[in-house]
């Protein structure tokens, strides 16, 4: 088996950007030094959002399924850390296993119902399921309910200790690398071919004899699992799990990240996450510098930004670059 599923054009702009971004992430903790804790934590958050967006991109970009409810899997993953922790089960492997099993079950059920519909109805039904889970989390009074749940310590992954922020950062980085590589392979595999074919022309894929629904369901569950892993990491980063992780605005933000990076590109979500989160970080400062009276209203500009991204940026930041695969 070859390491890369396709020949890479090393001089194409996409390859250069991808390599530069990955190297930047790889050396970031060294570059910011010992008192750069804020930057390390921020970059971890970027990586975690990117991971969730990579998961979403798998069905959104390659399968054409617009899920407006993927934040629920992030929230589920976060609670799979928070709730066992409250009962003093600190093993990270247990958290991860619980998150993956529960997500697989939930995503199979939700996917089976939601995939009966297409187009706008699919968007809405995924939103509806996410809202249901959101209210379930709100009702968990013993686990903080509306206010969320503080997590006493980070998950214990045995030999691999993530108590320090830098080690958690590298765990997230590793997860993103793995997700990027796996989704790249999956997209170019026969499985990915049929998935992409069903996006381009469902009727033809069906006529060729492919059980499209089954492929879509598997893709949906896989993408949910990636989001659940992101949730486990997010809970470890913030040491907090709350219903707000499953709010529909977060699902919206994940879609923004995917589109911003470039719909249907493997690497796009990471670029999109960097762009959106950096923007969310600098906009308040920028607004404060120019209009001090309105520093809390920077979301106004973010809203306009998202609007114009949808209107003008058809292929996304990374997607607009020339391809990197021969």
């Amino acid at each position, binding site marked *: 088996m070859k390491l890369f599923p396709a020949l890479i054009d090393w001089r194409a702009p996409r390859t250069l950007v991808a390599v530069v971004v990955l190297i930047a992430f790889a050396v970031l903790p060294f570059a910011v030094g010992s008192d750069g804790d804020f930057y390390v934590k921020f970059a971890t958050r970027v990586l975690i959002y990117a991971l969730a967006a990579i998961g979403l991109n798998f069905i959104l970009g390659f399968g054409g399924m617009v899920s407006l409810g993927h934040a629920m899997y992030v929230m589920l993953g976060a609670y799979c850390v928070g709730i066992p922790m409250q009962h003093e089960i600190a093993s990270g492997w247990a958290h991860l296993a619980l998150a993956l099993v529960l997500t697989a079950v939930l995503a199979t059920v939700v996917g089976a119902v939601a995939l009966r519909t297409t187009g706008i109805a699919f968007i809405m039904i995924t939103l509806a399921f996410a809202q249901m889970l959101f209210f379930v989390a709100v009702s968990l009074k013993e686990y903080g309910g509306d206010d969320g749940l503080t997590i006493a310590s980070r998950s214990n992954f045995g030999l691999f200790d993530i108590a320090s922020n830098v080690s958690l950062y590298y765990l997230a980085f590793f997860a993103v690398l793995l997700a990027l590589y796996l989704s790249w392979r999956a997209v170019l595999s026969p499985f990915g071919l049929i998935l992409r074919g069903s996006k381009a022309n469902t009727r033809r894929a069906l006529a060729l004899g492919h059980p499209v629904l089954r492929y879509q369901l598997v893709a949906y569950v896989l993408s949910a699992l990636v989001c659940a892993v992101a949730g486990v990491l997010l809970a470890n980063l913030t040491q907090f799990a709350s219903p707000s992780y499953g709010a529909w605005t977060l699902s919206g933000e994940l879609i923004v990240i995917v589109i911003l990076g470039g719909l249907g590109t493997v690497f796009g979500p990471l670029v999109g996450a960097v762009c959106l989160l950096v923007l969310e970080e600098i906009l308040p400062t920028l607004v404060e510098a120019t209009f001090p009276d*309105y520093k809390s209203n920077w979301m106004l500009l973010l809203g306009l930004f998202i*609007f114009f991204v949808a209107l003008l940026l058809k292929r996304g930041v990374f997607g607009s670059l020339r391809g990197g695969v021969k």
Partner: protein
Amino acid sequence: MTLQLTLSQLMNGLQLGVLLFLLAAGLTLVFGIMSFVNLAHGSLYMLGAYFGAAAFAKTESFLLALLAAVVGAGIVGLLLDRFALTKLYTRDHLDQVLATFGLILFFNELIRIIWGPGSIFMQVPDSLSQTVEIFGFSYPSYRFAIIGVGLLVALGLYLLIQKTRVGMLIRAGATHPHMVASLGVNIKWLNTLVFALGAALAGLAGVMAGPIVSVQPGMGEPVLILTLVVIIIGGLGSIRGAFFAALIVGVVDTLGRAFMPTIMRGIFERNTADAAGPAIASMLIYLLMALVLAFKPQGLFPTSAGATR
């Protein structure tokens, strides 16, 4: 669970349903005709509430407040359609969802800048602040008025769509937009008209809800999600579907919230019931929607426009 309580909760459900219908009618029309998903519809509802509350505070006339809300939201809708959204009508749903998601953030902050982050208070007009008695139980007359206005609007919409020339064009535009355009009808203006009409109805819903909910930034989102549930259950593009689905959702949601905790207490222990009751009550309508979609993916009253897109 007395009869009195059940009846008044039923009326509350009807009142919520009627408000939802006002929102859903515009949203479903816009979807049916332009195949456009407008998540910012809830923002128009919020704007209506703010316009109405501001006008009411200035003039102390509820009629002027109604007028301000309807006209104000209608104009914002008109401007949105003309200057921002036209380009999106031909794009796919993903771009539309994203763009209007951006607009929600924009409008919420705009409201915060103009009226501040807190909620503002809107009084029930004096003439409607009493209760009325029917069949031996009393009910706030303001809520009665909401139901009355909502049903009147529903009747008006029915007449507009079924009996007038404009309505005929709207119906034709929903199923065969290209044919209507090639017959010489300016479909762009038809779109704008429908969008502004939907916005005005959202504004009406906002101002009428003003005195019974808190008028605050972000008040549009929960209502928007309920409205989306309504138009999905009713069948995309169908006004009739929106009407029945709005009433069903309003009644189910209200009765669920009122009685679910009590019902749960009969089945489970008190602690479990107290925790699970409200959660299940909030989930009921989503369960309803999932059930409807599982058995009738096109909604209860499918239209040909909703079916093909």
